[in-house]
């Protein structure tokens, strides 16, 4: 794998600014309010694990963060811009800074894998040669170079998820939102996806917001790191690597942030609700 090549490495300035910030965000539907005042922020280069039971509004929260939905009230800032009241045409611009990995992949089913991944570059009018080389490179990164001409329906669920990650990755976005990337996958495939996500974090230095109902996904991201020199994923829970690629947990419950803290704090919490995630 050629990870150090030019198109994949991004050198993001670390400004110490919040990449994503939610202030008292509320959102409801006919059946009632789902998000009831959510406040949190994700710093640049941070990985925030959004933990919550199914139906607590994780997907809604990610869609709010990319402007696909609008909050009923409250403010959302992305990369320093307030997106909650922004016109759709300006949002389209902001969304180019955000990679979104949908829960079910949401691949265009009438396009091949290669065309799916190339979609954004086509939109931007990048020339064909460059598109081809970048698509191949990103597909190599997710280890699916051989599927470039397949249709999404010919792939397994895990492969589709990886193609979706490749598609989110091609525009080299500084922020990536993962919606339950391991939901419905077997443990081994889940592991492949998680190691892909942590490689992405350690190679690109992206800010990530990852929704999941599985605690082990979060711990894997906190305790494992990708070593670009050795080109290997290894266990490493040293304070040094936690500082370079910090991981934080948010627990969503009944429409609010119920817990916010480091993996250690979550492990040691005596709270009975949180302990239910741990067993």
């Amino acid at each position, binding site marked *: 794998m050629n990870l150090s090549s030019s198109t994949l490495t991004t050198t993001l300035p670390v400004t110490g600014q919040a990449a994503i910030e939610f202030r008292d965000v509320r959102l409801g539907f006919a*059946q*009632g309010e789902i998000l009831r005042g959510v406040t949190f922020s994700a710093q640049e280069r941070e990985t925030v694990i959004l933990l919550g*039971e*199914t*139906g*607590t509004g994780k997907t809604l929260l990610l*869609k709010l963060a*990319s402007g*696909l939905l609008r909050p009923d009230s409250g403010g959302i800032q992305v990369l320093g811009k307030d997106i909650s009241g922004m016109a*759709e*045409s300006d949002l*389209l*611009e902001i*969304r*180019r800074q*955000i990679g*979104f990995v*949908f*829960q*079910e992949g*949401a*691949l*265009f*089913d009438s396009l091949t894998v290669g065309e799916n991944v190339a*979609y*954004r570059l086509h*939109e931007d009018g990048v020339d064909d040669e460059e598109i081809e080389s970048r698509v191949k490179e990103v597909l190599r990164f997710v280890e699916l170079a051989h599927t470039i001409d397949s249709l999404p329906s010919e792939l397994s669920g895990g492969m589709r998820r990886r193609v979706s990650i490749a*598609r989110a990755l091609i*525009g080299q976005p500084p922020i990536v939102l993962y919606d339950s990337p391991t939901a419905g996958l077997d443990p081994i495939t889940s592991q492949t996806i998680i190691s892909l996500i942590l490689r992405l974090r350690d190679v690109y230095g992206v800010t990530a917001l990852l929704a999941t*109902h*599985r*605690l*082990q996904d979060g711990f894997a991201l906190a305790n494992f790191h990708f070593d670009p020199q050795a080109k290997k994923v290894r266990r490493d829970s040293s304070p040094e690597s936690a500082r370079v690629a910090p991981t934080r947990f948010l627990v969503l*419950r*009944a429409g609010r942030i119920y817990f916010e803290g480091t993996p250690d704090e979550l492990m040691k919490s005596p709270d009975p609700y949180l302990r*239910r*995630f*741990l*067993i």
Partner: protein
Amino acid sequence: MADTPIQAAPQEARAPEVPSVVEVLQDLAKTSVLKVQNYSKLSYHSITNLATGPRYIQDTLDQMDDIGVGSLPIVLLSGFFIGAVMVLQTGTQFERFGQASLTGDIVSLALVRELGPSITGLLVAGRCSSGIASELGSMLVTEQVDAMRAMGTDPSRKLVTPRVLASLITLPLLTTISVFVGLIGGMVASVLSLRINATTFWERAIKILEFSDIMQGFSKSVVFAFILATVGCYQGLNVRGGTQGVGRATTQAVVVSSVLIIVSDTFLTKIALYLADKFF
């Protein structure tokens, strides 16, 4: 581990309220107004999108192929037989008065002003309005539309405008072809059953037509094209409730666009006759 399903936190239970008749009617009125408003917005943007980029030319060409070339067989076939049956029906009536040669005139007028545009419009609505609704609806429920938005593409530009434009370009052409084939069908029928000379039929059929007749047919086909494409897009992009919703939207698209075509036909005819009277 945490993979075990946990019950979702119970929402506060609310006392079930029995809505009054007035409330139900009010809700109904509100949702209808909202629907009309959303449909108007979609239709308006489908055209105004053309003023500024990005424009999706390749998508428009693909849609023209699908709507235009794809509908050609049914349009040819039905056009021919509509022309023929018109001759059989009217010809026997005219024969009674010994005016069989008038058949060409009347069939030509009927085809150009009325039957060509409306039959073609209804056929293409049945084929394409439903096709558009089911395609866009499936894309919506599988989050492909959201994925598009998430990648910075405006679905109105990428999905709606190419379909509306393709329909606006191809339906008038299809209508022209349908009328032409209809006249041929009429000619064949009149030669075979009314013993009218083919050239007589053809000459009379062409000679009777005035500019206003052609304009009437053309403007109808443009309006029908707009209706069938925008209704298909609207139904597709407003699917509620998964796969079942897609099925409902597909049926709904055909029903609504067909009814709108027939209703608008009446008004367009009235307007066209009035204008023809005034100006031509």
